[in-house]
């Protein structure tokens, strides 16, 4: 019944004995192209005319193959073609007309190499190439599955990938950071943020947050979650599909079930959740220092409190026991109702002052004021939600609190511990009669990163007769989020709060608290008071210093989670025990799996030498180090093959996520190995690899056909010409924005949302049709788009953008009627056509010059006479915006030669 998905017969590779006894297997078992040891092949020596065409070893390998197959290489493309090709390839945008002219007229012999260097140095380069990697790791900004909730802190990982490409991070480091950066480079931004990789894929909210791990459905959800982590690592870095081995190993399969579950054991402690990271190492140091101070002074204060208790003797102890008893008796009595309380407006910083007050109707004698915090599971906060970190309580007969203000409590000097849902009672000293009671928050509490609020469930104003005179009275506030039933001002005095206490208990508690205060005051000697004040001041200083430090960032990553409710995680409990599951069924656990990997490197044990009791990250470090071993035959072939794919539109092994038996064979195995060794033993610089590829004669060929060659190799497997490339969804959208002069090149940060979000509390609805394409916030590059898994953005989806539910090694490349409709009628295209027209009108005075400029901007060439005449005629009748719409629909705009 609980069969798992993906129980697939995967005829995979050529191992003829089970890897369980792999230690004894013969070496022929690894005699498959992708598993053979990586050695540097000799570069073929070309002779005659062909030798003249060789610019670098890539050309020698390619030409040798062409010669074998009787194919002729194609001539070099002209400069106009080359610059457009290079721009789209390296930065995903077209060159501007002046950039085209400059390059065409650049007589220096190294003009092309200079252009390449300039593009690789552009920040636009990282944005373009990061998107390729995000396809592979199936990055998204929502969880996917049912109730496809937002994942607001995924983006730091996306920015990390962009940064990694722009900084040309050595690949070895790039791999290790993503698998175990938090352990290998703790307290560095990149080290922590990179592990967003582990959490990049979908996550089943219901299966984790609503179903506990003790239930079968809960176990299946967590198993599936680890499966995604395992498959992502192995497909992304080694182009190996291992998921099939969760149900059975095959006799030809190099991935045994033991191997598979040993990979699951690597991630056994992890869940997907938010974690903080330090943006800057200096701040990290300071934060640690001040945190130590805070700890020290807190301990000092605790010691002083203990001394006071000691001095006060059994009387205080008895009081404390009674207070604790009331708290205990009342806890857990809560019954959830939707009327949560009062909720202030949201601020970006904590140090904003907010107030809320009750109007008692007439001046009324007040003995105590009681504040009760809310309970809201938003962002897993729960009890204590919104309770201010610092605040004061005051009474007055002036609704503006300008005159005649009596202080009831002042908690603005240091942070007040969050009371959870335990009511906080403040006794009024002396006789106070007032009509208004106000609570002023001076330091707001964190709800989300960069999101601060003040909320209260109930405000009780107790008369000396212990009557709550605030009940049902009118509430005013500086601001309020009115979202009935959960949030509205009137909830503050509606007599309901989580774990409703009866007023008598509150009165009792208030009385006891007042007595406690009196005793404390009595026993406090001047020396003790001085000591306490000093510690308080130091503590406040440490807290203030902590406050002044820049915020820590938050990233959604693979973490050892410490949660509550059903989603508790493994903090403090060590990794989950992982078993080999019979037929992949969580109800049939077999032998315990030890952390490890697949058995493909001769002489290297597939299980890691990691103590099962060692910290969980030791397992990930071991896997990361195994991945980047020099003798790992897969890692280096995998990455150079991916880079080749994005340059040529077809890779040497045209199944980039699968180097197994079911995948494609390399068209140029020697070239692949040469590139892999060159890359591995060089600086592992992706930018160097780009330079090598794009400066080859092979890359600079024309993309036009040749009947003679087509008879032999119609699909151009042997690269006798360049492939004409269909512009991908992101590049097409970015180009439309760029051409229309609307592209905002701001980098990084939370993704822009080109939808209207509705019903975020339950199952969020992502309403793309309600979005205004003229909203400038959404004019950033497509790599910064907030990517929803369950409801793909229709325009991008239609144009074959990657599906964030799957690891996409190579995108589909289709031509459909719905694409035609999208490019003709989607309101984004319609609005951008208007902006393009406006730009042309602003820059040029006459129709002929406008049309010519339109071609130069959009297509990097002037219009022919025929084209110009035709479009002038069309524009005269139908206007320039219609003309620009037409240009956006040209085949030439959708393909790059």
């Amino acid at each position, binding site marked *: 019944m609980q069969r798992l998905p993906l129980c697939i017969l995967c005829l995979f590779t050529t191992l003829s004995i089970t890897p369980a006894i792999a230690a004894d297997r013969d070496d022929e078992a690894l005699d498959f192209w992708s598993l053979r040891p990586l050695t540097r092949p000799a570069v073929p020596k070309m002779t005659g005319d062909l030798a003249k065409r060789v610019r670098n070893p890539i050309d020698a390998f390619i030409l040798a193959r062409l010669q074998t197959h009787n194919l002729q290489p194609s001539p070099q493309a002209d400069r106009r073609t080359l610059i457009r090709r290079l721009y789209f390839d390296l930065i995903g945008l077209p060159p501007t007309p002046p950039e085209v002219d400059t390059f065409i007229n650049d007589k220096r012999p190294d003009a092309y190499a200079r252009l390449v260097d300039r593009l690789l140095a552009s920040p636009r380069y990282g944005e373009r190439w990061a998107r390729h990697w995000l396809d592979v790791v199936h990055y998204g900004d929502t969880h996917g599955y049912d109730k496809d909730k937002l994942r607001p802190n995924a983006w730091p990982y996306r920015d990390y990938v962009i940064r990694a490409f722009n900084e040309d991070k050595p690949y070895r480091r790039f791999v290790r950071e993503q698998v175990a950066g938090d352990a290998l480079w703790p307290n560095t931004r990149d080290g922590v943020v990179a592990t967003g990789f582990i959490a990049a894929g979908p996550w089943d909210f219901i299966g984790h947050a609503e179903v506990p791990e003790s*239930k079968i459905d809960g176990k299946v959800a967590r198993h599936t979650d680890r499966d995604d982590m395992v498959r992502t690592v192995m497909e992304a870095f080694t182009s190996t599909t291992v998921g099939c081995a969760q149900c059975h190993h095959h006799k030809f399969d190099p991935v045994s079930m033991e191997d598979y579950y040993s990979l699951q054991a690597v991630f056994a402690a992890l869940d997907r959740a938010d974690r903080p990271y330090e943006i800057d190492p200096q701040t990290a140091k300071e934060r640690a220092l001040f945190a130590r101070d805070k700890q020290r002074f807190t301990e000092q204060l605790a010691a002083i409190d203990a001394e006071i208790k000691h001095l006060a003797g059994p009387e205080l102890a008895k009081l404390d026991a009674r207070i604790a008893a009331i708290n205990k008796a009342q806890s857990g009595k809560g019954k959830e109702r939707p009327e949560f309380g009062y909720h202030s407006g949201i601020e970006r910083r904590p140090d904003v002052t907010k107030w809320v007050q009750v109007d008692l109707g007439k001046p009324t004698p007040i003995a105590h004021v009681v504040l009760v915090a809310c309970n809201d599971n938003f962002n897993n906060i729960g009890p204590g939600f919104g309770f201010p970190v610092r605040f004061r309580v005051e009474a007055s007969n002036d609704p503006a609190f300008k005159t005649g203000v009596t202080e009831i409590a002042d908690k603005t000097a240091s942070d007040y511990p969050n009371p959870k849902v335990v009511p906080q009672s403040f006794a009024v000293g002396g006789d106070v009669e007032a009509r208004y009671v106000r609570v002023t928050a001076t330091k707001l509490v964190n709800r989300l990163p960069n999101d601060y609020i003040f909320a209260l469930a109930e405000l009780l104003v107790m008369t000396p007769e212990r009557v709550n005179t605030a009940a049902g009275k009118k509430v005013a506030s500086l601001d309020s989020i009115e979202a009935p039933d959960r949030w509205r001002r009137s909830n503050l005095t509606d007599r309901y709060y989580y774990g409703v206490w009866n007023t008598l208990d509150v009165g009792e508690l208030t009385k006891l608290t007042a007595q406690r205060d009196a005793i404390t005051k009595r026993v406090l000697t001047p020396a003790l008071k001085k000591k306490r004040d000093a510690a308080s001041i130091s503590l406040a200083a440490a807290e203030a210093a902590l406050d002044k430090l820049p915020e820590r960032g938050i990233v959604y990553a693979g973490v050892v989670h410490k949660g509550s409710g059903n989603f508790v995680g493994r903090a403090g409990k060590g990794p989950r025990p992982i078993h080999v599951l019979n037929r992949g069924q969580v109800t049939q656990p077999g032998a315990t799996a030890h952390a490890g990997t697949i058995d493909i490197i001769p002489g290297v044990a597939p299980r890691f030498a990691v103590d099962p009791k060692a910290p969980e990250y030791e397992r990930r470090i071991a896997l990361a180090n195994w991945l980047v071993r020099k003798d790992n035959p897969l890692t280096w072939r995998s990455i150079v093959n991916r880079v080749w794919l994005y340059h040529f539109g077809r890779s040497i092994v045209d199944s980039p996520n699968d180097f197994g038996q079911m995948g494609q064979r390399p068209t140029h195995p020697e070239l692949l190995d040469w590139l892999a060794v060159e890359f591995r033993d060089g600086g592992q610089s992706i930018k160097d690899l780009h330079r090598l590829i794009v400066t080859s004669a092979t890359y600079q060929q024309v993309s036009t056909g040749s009947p003679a060659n087509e008879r032999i190799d119609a699909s151009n497997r042997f690269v006798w010409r360049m492939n004409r490339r269909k512009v991908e969804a992101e590049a097409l959208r970015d180009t439309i924005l760029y051409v229309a002069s609307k592209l905002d090149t701001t980098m990084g940060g939370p993704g822009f949302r080109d939808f209207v979000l509705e019903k975020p509390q339950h199952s969020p609805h992502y309403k793309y049709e309600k979005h205004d394409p003229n909203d400038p916030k959404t004019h950033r590059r497509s790599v910064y788009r907030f990517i929803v898994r369950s409801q793909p953005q229709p325009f991008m989806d239609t144009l074959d953008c990657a599906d964030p539910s799957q690891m996409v090694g190579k995108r589909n*490349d289709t031509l459909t009627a719905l694409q035609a409709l999208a490019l003709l009628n989607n309101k984004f295209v*319609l609005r951008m056509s208007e902006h393009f027209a406006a730009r042309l009108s602003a820059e040029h005075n006459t129709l002929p010059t406008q049309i010519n400029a339109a071609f130069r901007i959009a297509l990097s060439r002037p219009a022919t006479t025929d084209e110009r005449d035709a479009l002038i005629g069309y524009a005269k009748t139908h206007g320039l915006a219609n003309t620009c719409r037409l240009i956006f629909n040209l*085949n030439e705009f959708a393909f790059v030669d």
Partner: protein
Amino acid sequence: MLSRRDLLWQTGGGLGGVALSAMLQDDARAAARNEPKPRAANAMPEWRHRTGVLHHPPRAKRVVQLFMGGACSHLDTFDYKPFLEKNHGKKSDFGEHVEAFQNGLGPWMKSPFKFRPYGQTGKMLSDVVAPLGDVVDDMAFIHNLVGKTGVHSQATYLQATGFQMPGFPGMGCWVSYALGSENDNLPTFVVLPDNRGFASNGPKNWHAAFLPADHQGTIIRPGAKNPIADLFPDKGGYVTRASDAAGQALLKRLNSKHAESRPGDGRLDARIRSYELAARMQLAAPEALDISKEPQHVMRLYGLDHGHVGSWPKEINPLEETHYMGRKCLVARRLLERGVRFVQVWSGNDNGFPRRNWDSHENIERDHGPLAIGMSTAIAGLIKDLKQRGMLDDTVILWTTEFGRMPSTQGSKGRDHNPFVFTNWLAGGGVKPGVTHGPSDEWGYKPADRSKPTTCYDIHATVLHLLGIDHERLTWRNNGIDRRLTDVHGHVISELIA
């Protein structure tokens, strides 16, 4: 030189729509890759192109899949349980430990609806699906379906795509991929979502995933301003009928010139053709969706003769359910008539409050009642209408849901999830009429014979079989695995085949 398309067109489409359109799509696809099909992987058998037949002679040409989002209770609709009537209110006892989704294991609960026999077969139906009584002899029930999970999202994926997780093509995508289009101006696979919103997983249920995008389900919203996304530009904008027509003509001329100077790249022609298809769709879709000219007797069939105008009550009610479901079913018929291969009709949206889907944890009578009346009225109309047009013979109808609901009470009036057994039914092309297959046990808790349950794989295999497709041979290689709709499972249920 004549293109292959021109050739087919001029020879009178002698191969029939199937092969014709399939060829067009295949041409475009092959051209898009600019290469012949690679060995083995992802190539449809060549002889399909010649014969229009995939693996064996088909019994049906098209499919309507009716999907009840939120999980419709078999016990309150199609699977009559006298045991529950007798033991209503008594402590439930399943004879084993049950892990319920929300611990809805209260006393046994009989259906709040009465059951009565219908048709010659005397099949017992509850009052809220009584409209189907007229056509019950055409239906084939399967009462021993089992799922794998009580989690909505995963269960929806399983029924819709054959896998429990995202990333796999919907059933309609596979059918589109296998058989291609039967028309020249409408999408092959159309989805009619619930008017209130998407069910669990939203569009991922009909996403093409790794299959080419032209097999994706196209959402059509009958009654909406733009029933297909981007079918037309905004009204009142600068794009007029004249500017559009002249623009498309000029576009074609410029694109053809561009293609001529770049011979050998079939994608350039394929893209020109995609614009022609789009233009035809602009003409065909509004006509297909216009139900205003349907005669009164047809409107009556679908319950659309109610005469109600204006807004609907706030509470869920039978008339409103009938209106929306009836309109979807009528549009479905019109699309099928015009050669749409696969129509997926959804009843019920996401799992929010108040309930507007079949997830009746709180109150079966309140929520299942109106939904079932609307659903059964509309679907009975669809079956009768297809029948009177002679289309039922080659149209398969599949009614399905996420899972069933428990025979025990949740709260006092609701039912919890039951992934252990539920009901599907089939009707139409090649389906044996009037049969009931694989009973559930006396409570409707698990299959009567627990060793022989039916799975979604069997249902999918059976539907593909009726279409002339061998479910084991319909594959697409993705990341090293030859993927199938039926994973590594599935048996054609021969008892259900006429």
